[in-house]
């Protein structure tokens, strides 16, 4: 319990840190911060709308400290301003829509890769020194050293353009109306397949190597030998004695790799024109839509922190040594 509380406090601090970065960035760049932030507004925004926006981001006529507090207040009341490009769409709404797509794509890809990678790692470690191990290790190296952008583009080229098995972009057929109808859902699945496969390929290698190394590091332990000496089946020892214990450091490294997962998915979304958080950020950067850019950083950080917390929870559940009554 104390462990989880400490983590929560830390995450709060991290979130504030992200907000602080947001606050200082425009003010640290050469030039007038207001100019920089709202240059994209041009003649689109009326004076009063522009002023409201300035208020949200703390550009008030007051010392820096107060400006900072004003901004924090906006953030913690859920006011992230409005998109300049899509005015008057609130940033929160824009990002919420994108978040759904990202969670769907990245969430499912991560779960699949974790399960696949971990299983491969377990088997490679158990069959250490055999050809299976060598092949898995090599594929894992490939998957984690080739940039996600390269994998995405190659997959798009081979399966999208050359073979034509999958569409070349977007979340669903633009002709269809979003609804819980079978044609729409089928279209979503069809469009999501390639980006998801790409992400799975990008992520699996890392999980496999981590699990393999963690397993190998504990294969010499006495309880493993005792498990075999008890006459238990190879599978039982491999899963319940070895893998179950190796899972602990693997899960904790999952937390660290969430950042990599977010980065990889960002690029994948851009390549496949998938309307998730990553692509939204990219489009916002092209349009210099700073309110959205800043809001993006906060949401992504929040997503990171939330995932980290989920991992912390799983760790507490998995390790009996942490389960103090």
């Amino acid at each position, binding site marked *: 319990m104390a462990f989880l509380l400490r983590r929560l406090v830390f995450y709060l601090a991290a979130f504030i840190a992200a907000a602080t970065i947001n606050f200082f960035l425009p003010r640290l760049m050469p030039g007038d911060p207001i100019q920089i932030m709202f240059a994209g507004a041009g003649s689109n925004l009326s004076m009063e709308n522009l002023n409201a926006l300035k208020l949200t981001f703390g550009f008030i006529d007051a010392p820096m400290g107060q400006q900072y507090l004003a901004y924090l207040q906006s953030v913690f009341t859920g006011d992230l301003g409005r998109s300049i490009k899509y005015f008057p769409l609130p940033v929160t709404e824009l990002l919420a829509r994108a978040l759904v797509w990202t969670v769907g794509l990245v969430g499912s890809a991560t779960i699949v890769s974790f399960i696949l990678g971990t299983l491969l790692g377990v088997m490679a470690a158990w069959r250490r*020194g055999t050809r299976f191990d060598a092949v898995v290790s090599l594929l894992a190296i490939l998957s984690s050293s080739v940039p996600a952008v390269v994998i995405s583009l190659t997959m798009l080229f081979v399966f999208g353009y050359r073979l034509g098995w999958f569409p070349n972009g977007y979340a669903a057929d633009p002709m269809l109306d979003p609804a819980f109808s079978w044609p729409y859902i089928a279209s979503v699945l069809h469009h999501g397949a390639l980006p998801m496969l790409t992400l799975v390929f990008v992520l699996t290698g890392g999980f496999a190597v981590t699990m393999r190394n963690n397993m190998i590091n504990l294969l010499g*332990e*006495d*309880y493993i*030998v*005792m*498990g*075999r*000496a*008890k*006459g*238990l*089946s190879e599978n*039982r020892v491999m899963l*319940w*004695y070895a893998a*179950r*214990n190796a899972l602990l450091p693997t899960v904790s490294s999952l937390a660290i790799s969430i950042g990599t997962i977010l980065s990889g998915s960002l690029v994948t979304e851009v390549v496949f024109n998938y309307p998730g958080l990553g692509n939204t950020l990219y489009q916002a950067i092209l349009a210099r839509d700073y309110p959205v850019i800043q809001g993006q950083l906060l949401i992504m950080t929040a997503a990171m922190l939330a995932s980290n917390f989920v991992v912390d929870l799983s760790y507490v559940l*998995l*390790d*009996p*040594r942490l389960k103090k009554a």
Partner: protein
Amino acid sequence: MSVLSVRNLSIDYVGSETVFHAVRDVSFDIAPGEFFGLAGESGCGKSTIAFAISRLHRPPALIRSGSRILVDGRDVLELDEAELRSFRWREVAMVFQSAMNSLNPVLTIEDQFHDVLNTHTGMSRSAARQRASELLGLVDIPADRLNAYPHQLSGGMRQRIVIAICLALNPKLLIMDEATTALDVVVQREILQRIHQLRQKLGFSVLFITHDLALMVQMSDRIGIMLEGELVEIGTAQAIYHAPQHDYTRKLWASLPRLTGEQIAEGAGQ
């Protein structure tokens, strides 16, 4: 018939260039109910022999052909996968050096009884729990400990639990591989006394491996002395103590610190 009959056992560790002969042509027997001690310095091959009896070795270890390990007349080295798994723990059980590490950290004590009972006898959860309580009773541990995890118990308790798990299937031979070396002397004594009582009650033999010759003489019926992979002397405990035949055995005795208070310099040359 002997419970254990080791004949011409040779075990090598195969490297890419060289081969290390860990055990060289070792033969000995253990009778039913006998307490047999195997003594020698670290690296002399005693643990290697212990592991081989249940065929627990991994590459690059290699049990050379021509070796035979007979448990109750059956050659363990000829068993296939399924027979081997069935044989393990039923006929031969093993206690390792540090009980800290012998128990799986993520399973409860009850689980660790259940998996072996279920695998060998198909026992249900409740039957297994019953049996586990009985076994814990043999080593004076309250049954409520079944729901605990290993890290919640003391070192001595863990060692006793491991012994209890060892006796789950009434094995004929219990191998104790430096099982008390890491414990302090008092706990060590308690455990060994307990083993003695259990032996009288259940009738199993013990293969006791240690480098502590003095301890071994107190406990064993017969003793084997190992040096660099070879069994250099074998005899009753009394014979080994009073009339050691082999040079090395004599050296082992001579190098034991005495409780008589002589300075080493004075006692030299004796």
